[in-house]
């Protein structure tokens, strides 16, 4: 039986599902409900410095990209850090942690880039008994205009500097939350490492304008006729986030740095994918904001079932298992040949594969007068477009061509030796095979 217990940076939680620093974790009331629902931990919504709290807009804060049946595919928000008093938050954190000692509570922080500001808040956080802190170097809206959030996360030197202060004035684990609004995610991750960070969490939200209201001619959400860019999250950002996670996992400078995966995790499968790419746990927000806290029960049961099926006893058993298989394009095997194959029994004759291939790809699907669709091997480059546009899962599959057979498209015999672009004769910079 799979055991979901996770120990991330020495912080134990009964499962790898934490709620990310966001609206769901802004208050004791919500966090208690989350723990009752089964969440393994929370990152408390970002605290700011002592003094008058920030104020939020009084108009709409969220906008959504909807899929079929108003399924939430992407969410954008312009909410700031907590707009509640620092000491109220700290007292609540202390109370909740005392009542839920087996759950992880991490405190997200965002104060000005001055040593005194950090020196002032860190002992207060330490006092709560929370398990660690997460530095919010990621929020791309609002706070960034004030020199915080993503404005810090975009300057590796600042990340390193602030992380160092935190390690100096705080005794427990320090997680640096990264902004994706940069070119190379490894730069801020490496800076966090240099500053002594115990881990990075990624990604924070992506700069976004979710939609334009064509009546008001203004971005959504619209406040008094104006809109501002927000931070994009939800299922739509998962591929972007997973790429960044994989880059940190395989970059020699940052490999091995513990990671907490964030970005569009909606089901157990999403979580498993992040963990396979090297994350020690995951953080969830949009799924909870869409479906409520109960959604974690599916994540737990699903991950358990899958781990049991695969024989994984613990999260560690498969953590990072996919990293070795993430390679640069130039190292992909150019001798591997596949062809699309359409299962006629499953085909419902919609013709989407034909339209896609005929109009936009390689004219490799034939259509008969009675709507039978078949692959023309002599044209098929195995691009996979037909597989992906087919409404029937697994009706079209990619079949590996066996060594010794001839690829009718190239006229070449398929070989079982590996060869990639670095040694390909068409590559002007080709080097001899090692």
């Amino acid at each position, binding site marked *: 039986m799979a055991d979901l217990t996770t120990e991330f940076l020495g912080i134990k939680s009964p499962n790898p599902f934490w709620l990310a620093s966001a609206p769901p974790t802004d208050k004791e009331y919500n966090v208690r409900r989350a723990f009752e629902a089964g969440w393994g931990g929370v990152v408390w919504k970002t605290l700011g410095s002592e003094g008058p709290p920030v104020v939020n807009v009084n108009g709409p804060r969220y906008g959504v990209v909807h899929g*079929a*049946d*108003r399924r939430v595919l992407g969410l954008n928000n312009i909410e700031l850090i907590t707009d509640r008093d620092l000491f109220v938050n700290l007292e609540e954190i202390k109370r909740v942690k005392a009542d839920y000692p087996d759950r992880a509570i991490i405190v997200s922080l965002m104060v000005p880039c001055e040593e005194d500001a950090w020196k002032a808040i860190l002992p207060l956080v330490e006092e709560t008994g929370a398990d660690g802190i997460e530095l919010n170097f990621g929020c791309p809206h609002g706070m960034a205009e004030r020199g915080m959030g993503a404005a810090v996360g975009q300057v590796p030197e600042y990340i390193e500097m602030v992380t160092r202060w935190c390690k100096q004035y705080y005794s427990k684990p320090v997680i640096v939350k990264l902004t994706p609004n940069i070119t190379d995610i490894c730069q801020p991750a490496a800076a966090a490492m240099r500053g002594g960070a115990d881990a990075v969490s990624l990604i924070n939200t992506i700069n976004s304008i979710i939609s334009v209201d064509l009546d008001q001619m203004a971005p959504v959400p619209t406040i008094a006729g104006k809109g501002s860019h927000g931070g994009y999250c939800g299922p739509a950002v998962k591929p972007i986030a997973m790429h960044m996670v994989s880059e940190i996992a395989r970059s020699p400078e940052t490999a091995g740095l513990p990671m907490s995966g964030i970005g569009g995790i909606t089901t157990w499968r999403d979580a498993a994918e992040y963990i396979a790419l090297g994350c020690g746990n995951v953080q969830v927000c949009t799924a909870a904001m869409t479906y409520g806290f109960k959604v974690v029960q599916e994540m737990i049961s699903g991950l358990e079932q899958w781990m049991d099926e695969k024989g994984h006893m613990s999260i560690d058993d498969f953590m990072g298992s996919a990293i070795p298989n993430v390679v640069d394009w130039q190292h992909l095997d150019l001798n591997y040949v596949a062809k699309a194959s359409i299962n006629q029994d499953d085909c*419902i*004759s*919609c*013709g*989407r594969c*034909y*339209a896609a291939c005929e109009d936009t790809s390689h004219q490799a699907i034939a*259509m008969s007068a009675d*709507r039978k669709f078949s692959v023309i091997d002599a044209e098929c480059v195995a691009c996979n477009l037909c597989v992906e546009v087919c*409404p*029937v899962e697994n009706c079209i599959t990619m079949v590996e061509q066996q060594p010794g057979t001839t690829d009718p498209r190239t006229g070449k015999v398929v070989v079982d030796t590996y060869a990639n672009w670095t040694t390909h004769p068409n590559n002007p910079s080709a080097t001899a095979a090692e």
Partner: protein
Amino acid sequence: MNSQFTPGVVPKRLSTEDLSHNFDDLHAPLVVHEAAVAADRCYFCHDAPCVTACPTDIDIPLFIRQISTGTPEAAAKTIFGMNILGGMCARVCPTEDLCEQACVRELAEGKPVEIGRLQRFATDKLMKSGVHPFNRADPTGKCVAVVGAGPAGLSCAHRLALLGHDVTVYDARPKAGGLNEYGIAAYKSTDDFAAREVDWLMSIGGITIETGKALGDALSLDAISAEFDAVFIGVGLGGVNAMGIAGDDLAGVSDAVSFIEDLRQASDLSDLPVGRNVVVIGGGMTAVDAAVQSKLLGAEQVTIAYRRGREAMSASRYEQDLAASHGVKLMFNVKPNAVHGNGAAAEIELEYTQITDGKLIGTGETMRIAADQVFRAIGQTLTMDGGLALEGRKIAVTDAGRTSRDGVWAGGDCSSGGDDLTVTAVAEGRDAAMDIHATLTGDV
């Protein structure tokens, strides 16, 4: 006040409230969100089978995509461009035998995209706006007579008017619409939809309708052929086949089409008499419409007696199930031998049938069932051929609707070829109009 159990053919078996509920829309219109969800199920197939299955060739994937992107008005224009009676067809088409049967999702999961209901969603939206989506071409100076203001005639008239011709439509009845107005179950065309559709269609301009004028009496084909540049005949099938059995003339025995017509034209359904024990002879849509509506009016027992097996019934399986779900009993392989009664029908004598050497014959085994009302629904016949050549019992036409006489076209139920469906009539009227236009403008 009578009840379901009152003997004889009497009115007021049900309360006004129950009647109003019974004759409400068979399918409630889709609301915006339902339409969005239903539209999203469309795969936007290449060379879509649903389009091939539609007699009017509506670009179904395109109009559904237009609905899904929030432009039902554009969707309606796509529909009306091919089928100006798309609103009525959305209500009465046997979609289960046409577009929805061909839908790949029917094959994949037995649940097709709800094309009919989506079409209604789009067409209702545009028609409610009161705007006619098309503008007439410049006048051609040509004038065309259309005889019969049913689906074929209206479709033909609209297309001709659109192309710039002046059209005069003649109809024998007091109202235009043909079977849309007089011959379809009331719950398929609620709120006087047929009449509203005619008004909306006419708003293209250039069409004059003269009702109460039947071909034959005061209106000869020779006369109108001389007066107009072209003539289109869409007179439908005015006669009803007789059963030719003893008791056919007893009180309580009548034509299903007359019953449906009375029902459609009734200002108060509670005034409409219906039997306690109703038997409908036939196996088509008319039989189902008469049977179901008898039940909805409060008849206690309603039976459809069809002389062949279920598979031969021309009413679709969906229609059969609709009847069954309303409590109508379907009897197969039985034929009527006689209606018995003293002045008025009381019982019908049915005989079981079988097919021997390809011929339908009685087995000799008979039964009698109570029947104070018997409806004939065994098909309609052409009553006016205007001296045109026939094919079988219908006016012979080419694909473009040309008859044996120059300058005269025909379409709809009165002409050869095609199923006797509203949608087929619309296609034939439209196609004849295009051929008339090409002929009149020399663009052949």
